[in-house]
């Protein structure tokens, strides 16, 4: 359905603030440097709990409204207790959440009213990699597919363009499609 409304779109994204921030950063690019953080603690077996409480950005420390908790475990087929989603599923959650936020923001900026946005994410993995059974098989995903089902006041082409632009500006899409230097050390 693509009826056009005269009213401005309301998707709940404060685009003016985001555009204002982009302009402000042109003057003070240092403020754009953020450091995101999480802590993680082993509970038992493969079960662990992470929390996300604060981050650095705009030149100062910030605290989230609350300390957000995430649990992770391995599934029963790995002879684990399945207390929570696996870490790789949380990565898929991160990708979908990031792309959906992007869809909403871009739609707002393009004055497209969203009614429903649903995504399904699938990641293929051959566990011969993590088991060390075959060195030619990578540990991580071999392929990730995201399917969006979007109902909005826009043409199918405009919806396609929304999703494409969301990928272009997505942090998690970039994280998954490009390498990152990772340092892990023991304190």
């Amino acid at each position: 359905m693509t009826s056009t409304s005269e009213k401005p779109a309301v998707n709940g994204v404060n685009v003016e603030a985001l555009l204002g921030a982009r302009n402000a950063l042109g003057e003070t690019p240092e403020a754009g440097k953020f450091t995101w953080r999480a802590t993680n603690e082993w509970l038992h077996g493969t079960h662990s709990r992470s929390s996300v409480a604060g981050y650095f950005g705009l030149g100062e420390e910030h605290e989230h409204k609350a300390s957000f908790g995430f649990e992770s475990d391995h599934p029963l087929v790995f002879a684990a207790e399945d207390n929570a989603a696996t870490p790789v599923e949380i990565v898929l959650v991160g990708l979908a959440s990031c792309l959906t936020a992007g869809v909403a923001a871009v739609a707002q900026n393009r004055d497209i009213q969203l009614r429903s946005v649903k995504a399904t994410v699938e990641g293929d993995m051959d566990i011969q990699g993590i088991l060390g059974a075959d060195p030619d098989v990578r540990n991580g995903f071999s392929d990730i597919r995201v399917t969006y089902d979007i109902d909005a006041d826009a043409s199918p082409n405009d919806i396609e363009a929304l999703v494409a632009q969301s990928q272009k500006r997505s942090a998690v899409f970039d994280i998954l499609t490009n390498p990152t230097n990772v340092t892990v050390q023991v304190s």
Partner: protein
Amino acid sequence: MRTTTVVVGAGHAGLAVSHYLSACSIDHVLIERGEIANSWRTERWDSLTLLTPNWQARVPGLAYDGDDPDGFMDVSEVVSFIERYARLVGPSLETRTNVESVRQNGAGYQVVTDRGVWHAPTVVLATGGCNIPKVPAFATDLPGAITSCTPMDYSNPAALPDGGVLVVGASATGVQIAEEVHASGRPVTLAVGEHVRMPRTYRGKDILWWMDRTGLHDERYDEVDDIKRARRVPAPQLVGKPERTTLDLNALTEQGVRLVGRFAGIADGKAQFSGSLRNKCALADLKLGRLLDTIDEWIDDEGLDGEVGPACRFPPTRVEDSPPLALDFAEHGIRTVVWATGFEADHSWLDLPVLDHKGRLRHDGGVVSESPGLYRIGLNFLRRRKSSFIHGAADDARDLVDHLAAGIGAPAPG
């Protein structure tokens, strides 16, 4: 044509097998696709030297007797050594004969060559462990302007185009090629994945002397925790030069070679490198530390502390703060890619149900149990850690001929 054992391949391993077969009076023939030591003659780059010192060049019945035991043979010296061994062993030999297939034939085998068919109850494959260079599938995505080669086509730096060179792989082959190409004025970027760091000498002796003396080289395939992993360990970062120099990543960095992470893929005409370089280097540093601990403990136990040099540890591998994760070939002037990404053995010509889903031969320490009378020698960690070295052939050949002789009711070589 009939014989008791067909040995495919007349390199040092096939000749060592021949030595023991003769000792048991087992009738046999060696079939060689080219000349003796063929892969040494045709598949090695110009400057290559053995990474094992001359004193370690020993095969059953012959040991190095020249005047430079601590030196390293070049390719022509290796060929001469193996030719001399062939004259000593004096096998029945069919050169310039290509084996096209090996098939089951009743209780024995039919070895089909381009110069006739042999029938034998037993077959030993001594065709080397480095038949096919392994190149990642994404190599086909290289921009058209880039020249690429494997160590088998590589001859010397002057044969490469002028300009930058990306050497992929930091095992023995990769670090040796990186060093000489960089020295030729072609700036080298070295993509580093899993690797084995070793100093050329430790406490006054060659590192391989220690591996020999401490028994590490004799460790058996049925004694290690994970033989699959042990067989995949890449060749150590060693080079055989008269000055006995160490050629680890720090040495290459000092010479101006730039290190990047494992070559992971090509996107938009750019090479992408893994962000795992620091971890790969830390793993290799830790593993080197464990090797040196083992050597120090052995020296302690043997009470040799006063007789050898002092213990020391080497500085950690230096990794720049943010190694590049992508390089544009054109922008960085990279004209050539050298795939030093390993080799695999070719068993595709075996017309026998003995290969796994990846075309690898299933065997138990060189005994192909599923196909009685069939044997393999000369693969990485076949029976011992030293199996792929020249001096590793002796024990393996003796064990396998023992097994073969018992199978056909012949007396063991003893």
